[in-house]
């Protein structure tokens, strides 16, 4: 099966969808982790790989790209509705 998502850096806690991923479909990572998408993840958008609490740093490219505005579940879409810019950058 072709991978549905791409993890860019090993420090990342989000992955990029390589196709439209409907809610409920299984996502598997090269390291063997498996989880279900809990929301629809559109092509090229981000999915959470771990559970994040409000205020946690969202990491992509191995760097912070903002913080969680709310608690985010594993398999949930991460975008402007639940990610806010990090202060002071």
């Amino acid at each position, binding site marked *: 099966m*072709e*991978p549905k998502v*791409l993890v*860019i850096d090993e420090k990342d806690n989000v992955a*990029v*969808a*390589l196709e439209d991923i409907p809610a409920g479909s299984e996502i598997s990572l090269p390291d063997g982790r498996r989880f279900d998408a809990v929301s629809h993840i*559109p092509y*090229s*958008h*981000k999915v959470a790989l771990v559970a994040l609490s409000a205020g946690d740093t*969202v990491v*992509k*490219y191995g*760097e*912070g*790209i*903002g913080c969680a505005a709310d608690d985010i579940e594993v398999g949930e879409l*991460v*975008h*402007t509705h639940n*990610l806010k*810019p*990090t202060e002071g*950058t």
Partner: protein
Amino acid sequence: MDTFTGYERANGSVGVRNHVAIIPTVSCVNGVAGLIAKEAPLGVPLFHGHGCGRAGRDLELHVRTLTNLGKHPNVGAVLVVGLGCEVIKAEHLSSAIAESGKPVEYLEVQAEGGSLKTAAKGLELLNGLIASVGKEKRTEVGMDRLIMGLECGGSDAFSGVTANPSVGVVADWLVEEGGTVILTENTEMIGTSHILERRACSPEVAAEIKSMIYAAEQRTRDILGQYASLVIAPGNMDGGMSSIQEKSLGCIAKGGSSAIKQVIDYAGVPSEKGLVLMDAPGYDTESMAGLAASGAQVILFTTGQGNPIGFPIVPVIKIASTSRLYRSMEDDIDIDAGVVLEGKSLADVADDIKSLLVRVLNGEHSSAERNEQSGITCLYVTNPSF
């Protein structure tokens, strides 16, 4: 150590092409430069829109750019075509370029008695220059002699996922080999100042990075006004970009992960090896002219939406972010990094880029060269002309 073959120049630089450049001092003589080039296909004209009507900072910037384009390692000899009454004088530009030790000739349209007479005499001079560079031979040199420029144009949501990180792996490899990599497009760095500052090799370089990116953000706000948020605010980006940091991280991924050794001005020549940042805008053709003038012998250009443009004296290698783009503009693209989306590793795509890069350095034409996509040389300006 990896190697490539090139033309060793008198000033110690190494060219990967052996062009004879025809440089107009001023836009008014582009037509004359064109007449000469038409009769001698081995002459490469650098048409541009400047050379007069400016003073101060922009004049200095244009003199530096034209001089450094003339001194470029890929250029074996130069014919400067002047008008006579312009601000940037043919005699001055020629002697500045000749400091590099290469043959330079110049002539002026007003002194020669018009465009046709200048073209006839210019062709004679050019043929002499072509004969002189024709004797030069390639020798094998180490990658430490290479300066590689990086550019992205017409990005899409996958530029930062496939093409740019693959290029980043190549950039890290070249730095390891002792070579130089120039990352530019300061508008694409907005939001990542703290990350790039952390990678600076000294507090002074960190301060220069901070000031360059701060100025780029202010300038973007000044120029775009109420539309600035389309470029620099989160939430207005399509394709899943959720913050300015995320967008810019995708852009700076081209530079890899090594320490930043220096910040150079537009068209400045780096004095350090390793990763260097150039203070140039995101506008593709202007930043490529800056990269070329800085002495980059080759440019890696990633694109998500597709862009055919090359540069007259520098091979430009095009890397597509998706296979869909690769298939739709196959004639213009050299490498399909979209295969990362099908599971190919960034390291494997980087190996493909490296192997093509070495072939292009050794003389194989990139798509932009094959398709004659030189266009005109677009010089950066900071103020209107008078």
